[in-house]
C-alpha cells in the first residue's frame, strides 16, 4: 500500500504534551482532540495540515504520557501515517492499536524537507521524495504489527484471539 502526501517536518523528541495538551483530555471525541493537535508545539501547524498530509519527525516521536488521545488526534487530522527516525514505545503501540501506521527511517528524516511531496510504501518499506527524487529505505513493519494493522487494530485482534481460542 502506497500513501502519497505532503510532508510536515517536525523535530526530535516531540512529546505527547505538545501533540495534545492534557488540558484537552476531557473528551474522547477525535474531532475535538484534532482541533487542538500540536497546539503547544506550533499554534499554526494544525491549520496547515490537510487530510492526506504526512508527519515526518526525528528521534523518539511521541515521548511522554500514555495518552492514546495523541495518535487519535493526529489520525483525526487525516494524517494517514507518520515517518520518524524512531518512536517512543507507548506511542508506537497506541498508533498501531488504533490503525495508524508508523514508519521508521532516520534517512528519510535527514533527506526530506518540509513541504516535499512524498510516497510511503508501507509493505515495501520505501519512501520516495518526489520533490528531490530521493529514495529512502524504512525499517520493515514487524509481522506482528502488520497483523495488528490487518485486523484493523487491537479491537479486531482481540476478536480474532477469542475466535481462535473457541476453536
Amino acid at each position, binding site marked *: 500500500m502506497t500513501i502519497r502526501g505532503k510532508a510536515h517536518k517536525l523535530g526530535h523528541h516531540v512529546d505527547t*504534551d505538545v501533540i495534545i495538551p492534557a488540558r484537552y483530555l*476531557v473528551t474522547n471525541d477525535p474531532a475535538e482532540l484534532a482541533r487542538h493537535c500540536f497546539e503547544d508545539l506550533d499554534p499554526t501547524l494544525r491549520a496547515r495540515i490537510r487530510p492526506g498530509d504526512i508527519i515526518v519527525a526525528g528521534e523518539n516521536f511521541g515521548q511522554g504520557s500514555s495518552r492514546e488521545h495523541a495518535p487519535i488526534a493526529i489520525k483525526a487530522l487525516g494524517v494517514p501515517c507518520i515517518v520518524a527516525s524512531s518512536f517512543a514505545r507507548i506511542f508506537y503501540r497506541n498508533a498501531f*492499536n488504533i490503525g495508524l501506521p508508523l514508519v521508521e527511517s532516520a534517512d528519510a528524516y535527514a533527506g526530506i524537507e518540509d513541504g516535499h511531496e512524498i510516497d510511503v510504501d508501507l509493505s515495501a518499506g520505501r519512501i520516495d521524495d518526489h520533490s528531490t527524487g530521493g529514495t529512502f529505505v524504512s525499517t520493515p513493519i514487524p509481522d506482528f504489527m502488520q497483523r495488528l494493522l490487518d485486523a484493523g487494530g487491537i479491537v479486531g485482534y*482481540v476478536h480474532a484471539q477469542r475466535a481462535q481460542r473457541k476453536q
Partner: protein
Amino acid sequence: MSMTITEKILAAHVDADEVRPGEIIDCRVDFVFANDITAPLAIQEFQKMDIPQVFDPDRVAFVFDHYVPSKDIASAQQCKITRDFVRAHDLPHFYDIGRSGIAHVLLAEEGFVGPGDVFVGADSHTCNQGALGAFATGVGSSDLAAAMALGRLWLRVPETVKYVLRGKLQPWVTGKDLILAIIGRIGVDGARYGAMEFAGEALAHLSMDERFSITNMAVEAGAKNGIMEPDDVTLAWFRPRARRSSAMYRSDPDANYADVRDIDASALETVVSVPSSPGNVVPVREVAGVKVDQCFIGTCTNGRIEDLRMAATVLAGRKVHAETRLLVIPATPRIYRQALEEGLIQIFLDAGGAISTSTCGPCIGGHMGVLAEGEVCVSTSSRNFIGRMGHRQSQVYLSNAGVAAASAVLGRLAHPDEVVRAPVPV
C-alpha cells in the same frame, strides 16, 4: 539459560523456561488499572470487544487521580462513564474522590502489586511499581481494554541495561536526583524500548519511597520498565500490604545485559532538570537564582511521606516568599493523614502553603495550579515539556522536595542548604 529479573518474570507469565529480548510474547497479566482520563477510552474500546465481563474483577482497578475533584462539566462526564461501568460490572476495586490517591502510589500502598507480578496500567508512570521487583509497564487505553478483556497482553521482551549504583548518596541528594542524573547522561531516549535494572550498594541505603522515585521515571528515559531486585527493605514494606502471593526473582549473575553501567552515586549532586526536557540536567547550584513563581511538591514521583518530611525540614518555622506560591499535594489520603499526624501539614500551613486533596492536577497543567505565560515553577514532578503545567511559555524545573521547598522560601531556585543553614527567623 541465564536471564535477567525482567526476563524471568515474563517467562513465568508465558509458562516458558525462557524468553529472549526482541521476542514478542502473549503474556498473562496479574493486575491492570486505568485512571479517570484513560479509563473512559478503555471502556469504549472494551465494549467494542463484545465481552460481557473483565477477565477477573479482582484484578482490575479504576483510580480517579487526574481531573479530580472534577474541574468542569466535561471532566465530570468522563468520571461518570467510569462510575457507570464499575457499577454495571460490579467491580470491587474502584477508588473515587475522597478515597482515591495518585494511582501508582495508592495501588502499591494498597498491596495490589508485589514482587514477581506483571502489572499493567493505562498511565505511563506505571513503571513506578518496578521498585517492588515487579514487571510494570504503562500502555494506552486500547491495550488496557485488551488486557481487561483477555487477562493477557502482547509484549516485546525488552533488552536490559543494568545500572550499578556504587557508594552512598550525599545529604540532599535523593533517589530523584539519582534518576535525573541518569536521564541526563543517557538522554530521554537512552533506554528506549528497554528495561532499566537498578542495582548496587547505593540502593540498599534507600527506602522504598526513594526507590519508587527512581523506577517511576524510567519512562522519562524511554524505558518499558524500571526494576530492582527485591531485598529486605522491599519485603518489610510489601509484606504487611500483600493481597496475593508473590515470587522473588533475581537476575542470574551471568544474565545477558545489553550494557552494564557503573555510576558513582556518592559523587552525585543535587540536580534539577531545566526547561523543557527531563534530560536537561544540571546541578541546582548552577541555576540557583532563577526567580520562581510557584513551587509544587507532590505527584507520583515525589508526593510520598518522606518527600513531605524533607520539605517540612526546610519549611519549619519559615515562610514562603511573598512573590512565590507553594502547593503541597500528598499523593494519597493515607499519606495526607500521616503528614497531619506528624505535624507536617501544620508546618506547610504556617509557611503559607496551599494543601490539596490528592490529585495529579498541576503536574499536567490540568487544574489546581496552572501556570500563566512566562511563569516559572519548581516542581517535584517528572516532566517539564513545553506547556506541561500551563501556558506554552511557562517553564518548569524538576527537582526533589528539598529544592522545591527551599525555592519556595527564597523565591528563587535554591539548594536546601542555603535555607537550612540560615537561622530560623524569630
